């Protein structure tokens, strides 16, 4: 049991948190701008590298760098939106998806040019996990990742449900034209969407870097599970994305537990297949995701 929790469940939750943070941004962008943001993984990477620069330049802990990197990711997204996506506001979603594919290539190569392609780490060496109770142990990084994710999710919930901007986002996700007619400054809503989505993506990227290590493909490698999480939750449903991220993260780890006999139930090389299988099965059962997606 302890082994199950330590080696399967807790890492699964941590991964789930990373998925969730990234997927929330994808879901928000989807809700407001109606397209699947392909470059989201690379925004994650960018955030992770900004944090790395701060860690390397000032000797900070990565957690101290986190807020700044969040801001960096947020601002980068707003800048990208202005230069690339804005002309496509009234274009069909698929066009913007393709534009974001271009952005993805640009971002990734810019990161490769700026930071190189070497594999980096925020901190080196071995850190033993902290004993919690009994045989249950948890790595410090996992505690922090999970705690910060919960805090971010709570803040997001407050923002979306209680703030005026959150309400405006809901309206715009439903019908942008009508939102404009109602007096909502839609460009401001778009800006906030990118700020939040970009910030959360940066956080996800940094956590992914903390969890393993840093390289220019770190975000791209997570992109498909992120989309799976966002869809699983229901398109444009940030809460759904959180649940979706956690489900996928946990499912793919836990599926390799030797539930029957001594061998892993699913060969570990099929972990990603598990994520997709869960998603497809889910969609067959509930065609618009867990949370019946479409608007916030």
């Amino acid at each position, binding site marked *: 049991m302890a082994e199950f929790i330590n080696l399967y469940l807790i890492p699964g939750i941590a991964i789930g948190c990373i998925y969730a943070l990234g997927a929330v941004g994808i879901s928000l962008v989807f809700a407001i701008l109606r397209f699947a943001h392909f470059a989201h993984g690379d925004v994650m990477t960018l955030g992770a590298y900004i944090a790395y620069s701060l860690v390397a330049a000032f000797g900070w802990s990565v957690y101290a760098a986190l807020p700044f990197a969040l801001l960096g990711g947020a601002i980068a997204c707003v800048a990208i939106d202005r230069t690339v996506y804005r002309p496509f506001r009234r274009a069909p979603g698929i066009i913007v998806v393709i534009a974001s594919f271009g952005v993805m290539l640009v971002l990734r190569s810019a990161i490769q040019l700026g930071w190189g392609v070497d594999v980096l780490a925020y901190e080196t060496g071995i850190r033993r996990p902290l004993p919690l109770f009994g045989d249950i142990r948890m790595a410090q990084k996992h505690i922090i990742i999970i705690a910060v994710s919960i805090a971010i999710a709570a803040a997001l919930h407050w923002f979306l449900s209680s703030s*005026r901007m959150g*309400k*405006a986002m*809901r*309206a715009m*996700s*439903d*019908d942008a*034209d*009508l*939102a*404009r*007619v*109602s*007096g*909502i*400054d*839609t460009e401001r809503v778009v800006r906030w969407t990118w700020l939040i989505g970009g910030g959360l993506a940066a956080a996800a990227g940094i956590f992914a870097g903390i969890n393993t290590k840093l390289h220019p493909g770190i975000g791209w490698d997570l992109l498909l599970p992120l989309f799976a999480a966002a869809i699983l939750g229901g398109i444009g449903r940030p809460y759904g994305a959180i649940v979706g991220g956690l489900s996928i993260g946990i499912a793919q780890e836990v599926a390799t537990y030797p539930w029957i006999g001594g061998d892993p139930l699913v060969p570990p090389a099929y972990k990603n297949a598990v994520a997709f299988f869960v998603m497809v099965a889910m969609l067959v059962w509930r065609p618009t995701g867990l949370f019946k997606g*479409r*608007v916030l």
Partner: protein
Amino acid sequence: MALLEAQGMVGGYGGMDILNGVDITVDTQEIVVIIGANGAGKSTAMKALFGLVALRGGNVRFDGADVTGLAPNHLVARGMGYVPQERNVFRNLTVRENLEMGAFLKPAATARVMAQVFDLFPVLAEKAKQPAGELSGGQRQMVAVGRALMAEPRLLMLDEPTAGLSPLVMEQIFERIVAVNRAGIGILLVEQNARQALAIAHRGYVLATGRNRFAGTAAALLGNPDIGQSFLGG
């Protein structure tokens, strides 16, 4: 002084001009109706007034200031309200949320004005928690009008507010329009229920192929046999 004054509006979608010089004036305290055949450009004219269709010629003044090309949110802030003909409710938001969105720029008055709207359309109070997309066609229309009223505008522009409403509700809507108007709000109305609309209006315009065809007092338009023949169903 005219509350709204548009002169020589020329514009349309993409490269094509739908409006070929449309003039519309609404005075404070006035109810003005636009009528015309389907596709005459009535909705386009409304959108142009509200900054939703780019104008290539002409100008729009509201309350003495030139508002040509201003974005809708600025117009709402200045006191214009608009109910589009199609897609005029937030389908996934509840009725209450729809109304709240109408008051986005004036959140303080939300509760008070919403009570008034519920007074006007009691069925909306019943359905307050239901997504607007699940309402019947007529109920949606009420939500749409209610939403626009929430901002307490000084000029209310309604594009076929009674389309699809039962006679009873249509009557109520026209009554309310009159009441709203009496409270000092200018009304600009596009209607196919033209006789009924002209009955409550002060003045009217007839548009044809993107141009002003007739203009005059409501009584004059109602009395004109040509207009009756071609636009009011004889």
